[in-house]
């Protein structure tokens, strides 16, 4: 795994806070509070890894993804890509490193410019960064379209002429056009029909192999993540609560949140589904503007102890490959 001295991606104590608009002070607003969308996340991905990030909506998955591709500027922490910290980069320097890290968005209906043909959408980044023109450019575009399973006769069409699955293929081709080392897929199949989801996931997995990319796969769909990811990070309210190999985390979840999350998956057999015990977490997820003291999950945790509202648990090693942010795991 450690072929390189630096892991391809190393995120350390990443914090992305958004100011909540407060009163107007002459020319600029003084923030009244902050939405702590991502608060102290660390993760590492080695070259060729597929990392899954799961969690319910609003837990900061998308913000984490956008921070890694630097669509958001981190409030604190570092994001190292092949040993270079991109967290504080800006301007030309940032623009030059962007091709290394590409993203696939959730909504293929919104992520393609409605006024650009497929060819232009895929060709534009190549033209700008790889300075290809003419025949070399078009053969590169056709090659990419072939890789993502789109017929080249579609190149002059506009996005509205395609189905959701086809659009997501275009978006993948556009991301691959820059030959990225890291591909961040933010809920890439959530907006698609179930029948099309499997194709896109298998396509992503195949392309990841072929191009030897590292992939961060973000989803609230646990089955999909289990299928594709080797290592999983479970997020709750801007923090990572559990991490480990996908199979182990899903088969034997350690953190109480992971356990409740997994119990939310219905069992296909109605007999079994009716007879099993449902543990529904109490209440709604708390607001990330004013997160609970201590462990952020304690107000909803079925196994909460009095001390949970006081001590903020850090990720601790559970065994050789897993880390959990709950001091009671071993005793439970």
């Amino acid at each position, binding site marked *: 795994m450690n072929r390189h001295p630096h892991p391809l991606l190393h995120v350390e104590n990443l914090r992305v806070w958004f100011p909540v608009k407060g009163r107007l002070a002459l020319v600029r607003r003084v923030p009244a509070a902050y939405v702590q969308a991502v608060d102290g996340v660390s993760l590492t991905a080695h070259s060729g890894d597929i990392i899954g990030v799961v969690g319910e909506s609003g837990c900061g998955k998308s913000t984490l993804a956008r921070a890694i591709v630097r669509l958001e500027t981190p409030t604190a922490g570092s994001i190292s890509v092949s040993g270079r910290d991109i967290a504080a980069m800006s301007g030309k320097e940032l623009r030059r490193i962007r091709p290394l890290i590409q*993203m696939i*968005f959730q909504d293929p209906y*919104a992520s393609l410019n409605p006024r650009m043909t497929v060819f232009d959408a895929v060709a534009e980044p190549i033209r700008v960064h790889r300075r290809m023109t003419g025949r070399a450019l078009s053969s590169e575009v056709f090659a990419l379209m072939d890789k993502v399973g789109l017929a080249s006769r579609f190149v002059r069409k506009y996005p509205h*002429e395609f189905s959701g699955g086809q659009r997501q293929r275009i978006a993948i081709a556009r991301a691959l056009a820059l030959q990225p080392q890291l591909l961040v897929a933010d809920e890439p199949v959530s907006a698609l029909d179930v029948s099309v989801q*499997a194709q896109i*996931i298998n396509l992503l997995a195949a392309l990841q192999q072929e191009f030897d990319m590292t992939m961060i796969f973000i989803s609230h769909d646990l089955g999909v993540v289990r299928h594709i990811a080797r290592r999983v990070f479970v997020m709750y309210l801007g923090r990572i609560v559990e991490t480990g190999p996908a199979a182990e985390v899903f088969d034997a979840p350690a953190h109480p949140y992971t356990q409740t999350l997994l119990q939310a998956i219905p069992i296909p057999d109605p007999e079994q589904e009716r007879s099993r015990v449902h543990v529904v977490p109490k209440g709604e997820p708390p607001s990330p503007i004013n997160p609970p003291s201590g462990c952020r999950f304690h107000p909803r945790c079925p196994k909460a102890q009095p001390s949970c509202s006081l001590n903020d648990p850090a990720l601790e090693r559970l065994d050789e490959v897993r880390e959990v942010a709950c001091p009671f795991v071993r005793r439970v």
Partner: protein
Amino acid sequence: MKQRFATEQSTIREAEAQQTPQVAARSASLKHPAWTQFKKNKPALVGVFLVLCVGFIALFAPFLAGDVPIVMRKDGQVYWFPNIITYASLTAENLYPNFDRWEPGEGEFALRPPVSYSPTRQNLRERLRPPGRDHWLGTDDRGRDVFSRLVWGARISMSVGFIAVGISVAIGVVIGALAGYYGGKVDTVILRVIEIWICIPAFFLIITVMAFLEPSIVNIMVVIGLTGWPGVARLVRGEFLKQKQQEYALAARASGLGDRRIIFRHLLPNALSPVFVSATFGVAGAILTESGLSFLGFGVPPPTASWGEILKQSQSYVDFAWWLVVFPGVAVFITVVSFNLVGDGLRDALDPRLRQ
């Protein structure tokens, strides 16, 4: 799990393949949803028709009114389109000044526009004639044909309308795009400037500025254009704020494209439809402003025919020369209403929330 996905995949591929022609067929009817909606709007279609009529009149004014022949044969030589050849070249050929009143002799001919009176030549024997067989819409206090002046006035109105709006759109789009795209301090400063600018009553500002400038049509266009940009800028800023959050804009940024490319290639084309709507209303406004200015004597310099100028001349004769008031008034009214109808239609057609 992997097995299941693999077997599903082959059947789904077929399903997707069958889906494609349907998608193509559906997109054919969706090609111009705005146009489909616009066609249903009868008043807007009438507006388009009238705007095209006024535009046609403005464009072909030399062929519709004037005393310069379209084709003429004089001294054995045929002259094509002396009506659109500049006066300077006509003078050089020694055709001016008698080519306009010149009557063809033996073996000569002159084909003049249907309204064969000059918009500017005075004829004091024909002063203040009411509408009749010779002068369809009468003459003014200097014996100039009102119809001819209205036709040439359409040129002034249309060119002032379009060029003034062109100037304000060009400035407004750039400033609004910068404010919306960069946000932060740039946005704050631009917004404050716009707010201050909007507080100044535009018409009085224009009158004041025109009082200091030489009265010329170019000055009018520039001044009206320079006062109109804040509205456009606000519109574009708002649209940019919305568009830059769209995923396609984020994707463009993640691709490492330059700001200029993102602004002009990605965001602007998607932010333009409200600008079209406001520009249509802007043309109507600019035409009204020009008429008002000319009426007050700050407009185009006198011999030039402009609708507001005719109205100004009519002030002393309102009591009996009704044709000097009614016809230019109707011309301004129809033109402004037509542009507003088109603007309303465009707004309804381009706003997806109003689309059924």
